[in-house]
């Protein structure tokens, strides 16, 4: 036995796997945690992709956030949310799982469906998105070449429904506050994208595989992602915002802490809250490309991301890289 083996020795723990599985099952059910599945693994279950979920989440946050400053003046079409800055909002597992999804409050109708697709090169990505696509000036060792994907501009209309809200709440044995009459039937017009995503896999792996040996913890995830896109914009056909605010923040599942954090946002109609799951990640403010950004570190210590907004575009750089590497890539974008 080597000296280190001796130093690190412990009594082998006795493990009851079935009991542990039962404990995990109870936690997953109690906290209503949904498993992730690959799109191709269960095609009949594919209903909402992450873009839709992202947009819906952004719209939800936008709704809650914008209600804080916009007065109750109803105009025909009112831009109630157009983010120009970002702020980190810590959320917990309870916040994530306790709140009803956006779909519980009404119906989302796509006027332009999100259709992500691969493009052969950066030129096509720029042409299709209508944006100047920034590229890193230097890449960390071990990062290969980029592949590009484009998300088209998407638009959707969300119509609030008191009836649907009631039914969704009843199915979960919850009693939400009644939806005010002027919210019922009112519409939100949501625009998101376009966006461009560049995936850089590990330089040593064949295309499509990642990680030094093809099976790193983040394999399936690229070594580096660089994304940019137009932030979501939400317009309203005249819902009374104070009522919407008090209605949404009073929903079961929105913790007082989360509500307080959202209320604390100084200029909610132009601030895009970035949810940070505090049990899985940490965040801090950083300066990137001369503006304030948010750095997010995965709690496993293996992943990092930075997100910022500049000149009307939201940018993100993420990967299985250190904080210094991710920030260096972000600052080298040109």
């Amino acid at each position, binding site marked *: 036995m080597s*000296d*280190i*083996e001796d*130093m*690190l020795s*412990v*009594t*082998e*723990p006795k*493990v009851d*796997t079935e009991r*542990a*599985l039962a*404990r*995990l*099952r109870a936690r*997953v059910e109690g906290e209503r*945690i*949904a*498993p*992730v*599945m*690959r*799109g*191709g*693994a*269960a095609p009949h*279950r*594919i*209903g*909402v*992709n*992450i*873009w839709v979920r992202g947009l819906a989440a952004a719209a939800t946050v936008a709704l809650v956030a914008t209600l804080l400053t916009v007065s109750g003046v109803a105009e025909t079409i009112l831009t109630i949310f157009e983010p120009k800055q970002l702020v980190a909002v810590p959320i917990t597992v309870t916040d994530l799982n306790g709140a009803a999804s956006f779909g519980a409050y009404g119906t989302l109708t796509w006027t332009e469906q999100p259709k*992500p*697709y*691969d493009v052969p090169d950066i030129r096509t990505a720029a042409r299709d998105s209508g944006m100047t696509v920034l590229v890193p000036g230097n890449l960390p060792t071990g990062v290969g070449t980029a*592949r*590009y*994907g484009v*998300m088209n501009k998407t638009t959707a209309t969300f119509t609030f429904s008191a009836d649907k809200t009631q039914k969704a709440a009843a199915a979960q044995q919850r009693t939400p506050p009644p939806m005010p009459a002027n919210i019922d039937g009112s519409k939100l017009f949501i625009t998101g994208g376009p966006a461009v*995503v560049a*995936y850089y896999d590990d330089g*040593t792996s064949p295309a499509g595989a990642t*990680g*030094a*040996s*093809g*099976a*790193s*913890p*983040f*394999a*399936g995830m690229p070594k580096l992602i660089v994304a940019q896109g137009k932030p979501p914009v939400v317009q309203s056909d005249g819902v009374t915002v104070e009522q919407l605010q008090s209605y949404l923040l009073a929903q079961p599942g929105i913790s007082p802490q989360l509500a307080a954090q959202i209320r604390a946002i100084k200029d909610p109609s132009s601030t895009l809250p970035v949810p940070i799951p505090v*049990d*899985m990640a940490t965040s801090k403010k950083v300066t990137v490309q001369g503006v304030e950004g948010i750095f997010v570190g995965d*709690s*496993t*210590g*293996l992943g990092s991301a930075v997100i910022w907004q500049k000149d009307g575009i939201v940018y993100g750089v993420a990967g299985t890289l250190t904080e210094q590497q991710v920030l260096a890539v972000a600052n080298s974008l040109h």
Partner: protein
Amino acid sequence: MEVADRLRLTTSPGPGMPPAFEALFRKEYARVVAIAHRVVADADEAEDVAQDVFVSFYRKHPADAHYAAPWLYAAAAHNALNVLRSRERRGKRDAVEAIRRDTQTPDPAQAAETAETRSEVRAALARLPDRSAALLVLRYSGLSYEEIAAALGLRQSSIGTLLRRAEDAFRREVTT
């Protein structure tokens, strides 16, 4: 996986745990606990770490992902090291007491001494850079170089060198 497929990564709305996840849990749980236990030297805390690791995986990754096992091993090491560092911040007494619970020997004096030694060793481990500590923990939990490389996203050919450096650094920390 193509870019468009990545963007279509979905969550399942269906109830219950997928059978593939339960199979993964049954296969890997004991090893995940063992890795965490190597770090925290407390069986209860190790099981808590393992639960968090599986929940985290369940929430973010498909159970049939080919990288499932190395992801779980790496997360077990990193999460356990985080627990260890929190414990160290709370003070030596807390650290020794946590390990004391886990030290199975009939002689109280010997148990106290063993707990003290294990605590000092783990304090040294907590002071190491994350990657070095994780390398040591995974290696001395019985993982092969290939498995460590997969777990930490390193080249297999560099594991030997990195491991020797980590061992040297660890010895220095223990003796300071």
